[in-house]
């Protein structure tokens, strides 16, 4: 059995995880002082990823009931990382905070993604009739 809401949640979280990973690649690049000068093309790609996250995060977090927990942290990351050059110029304390917030967001969405996938696996082993009956009787018992 497939649950369309669950499938949508997994798809949205997979896309979010990808975008946060890409953002992290750029942040890592920015913080590595040995890397050569930042190109305009890299800045453009960074802005693109940032734009996608600004647009989509709130919506995705709402869909998976994480908006209260993650919205603030996600916004902190996105607001602090204005550009690759901007990240490179952050103070040590600001960098630490940026990394801590990124990690909090990434860890939480990773965990929830795993839980949803486990739920999907569980549902695949069931059929719609047994599932509906179990839900019906479960509710009555409660």
């Amino acid at each position, binding site marked *: 059995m497939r649950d369309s809401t669950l*499938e949508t949640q997994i*798809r949205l979280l997979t896309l979010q995880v990808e975008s946060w990973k*890409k953002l992290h690649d750029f942040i890592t690049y920015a913080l590595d002082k040995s890397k050569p000068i930042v190109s305009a093309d890299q800045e453009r790609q960074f802005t693109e990823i940032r734009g996608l996250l600004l647009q989509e995060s709130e919506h995705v977090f709402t869909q998976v009931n994480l908006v209260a927990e993650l919205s603030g942290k996600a916004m902190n990351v996105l607001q602090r990382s204005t550009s690759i050059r901007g990240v490179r110029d952050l103070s040590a304390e600001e960098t630490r905070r940026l990394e801590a917030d990124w990690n909090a967001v990434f860890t939480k969405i990773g965990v929830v993604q795993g839980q949803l996938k486990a739920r999907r696996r569980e549902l695949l082993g069931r059929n719609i009739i047994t599932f509906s009956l179990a839900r019906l009787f479960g509710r009555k018992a409660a």
Partner: protein
Amino acid sequence: METRLLILNSDPVFEDRALAMFDAMRKVETRIVRTLSEAVYILMRENFDLFVVEGEPAVAIGQATNTRQHFPSLEVMCLTRGISDPKLQEEATQQNIELVATDCSDFKLRSRLRRIVSAFERQSGTPAEGIDPCHSLVGNLNQFSAAEILQMSCMSQRSGRFTFKSSRGNSEIYLHHGMVRHAVYSSLEGEGAVAEIFRWRQGRFYFEEGIISQVQTVNRPWTHLLIDNLQKLDETIQMTSVQGKR
């Protein structure tokens, strides 16, 4: 065996009508990308049964055509709103791109997509190796690329049949006195099939001396084919350069 779809959609979070329909299908695995360079990067490394491009008609058909140039055997489908421009329709037909209009009811769209995807369900499995000790040359494409082994065989004026076996299917290239005479892969024949085999990086190959094809589908000298295909491969790799920079 699941049907694998690679979906190019620049806004998969908010424009997800078709994505939700693919999600609901059984035995379908989807991978979503937002840019063409990402799609090409993945297509060079993984096999997909169908490449779906979703978006505005002109953009989507342009992207699908571009992909077709680099992956001649790939099944490509465009999901767009109604196409009024006959030029675009003609372009899609020429490039063997299936057009699916999304401005219809959910029921209609879902059944159309299901029909298309279910056509791939029967195709499955890795072909049997079928390698015989009498084959004069046997090897692995991880170690020698198709370009290398063909170059070697053409230089030594060989006549016979090369068989390539990979998860993408089987293909054959016939040589005649060091010239490529005929090539076939799935429904592709001639130079298109040679171009496809050039991209393979995984699989096995063997050569059977003396098997000559009666059919001739390749008319250009080997050196021209080699240069053209290597150039094309370079262009494909260039398309993914955005990925590489990350």
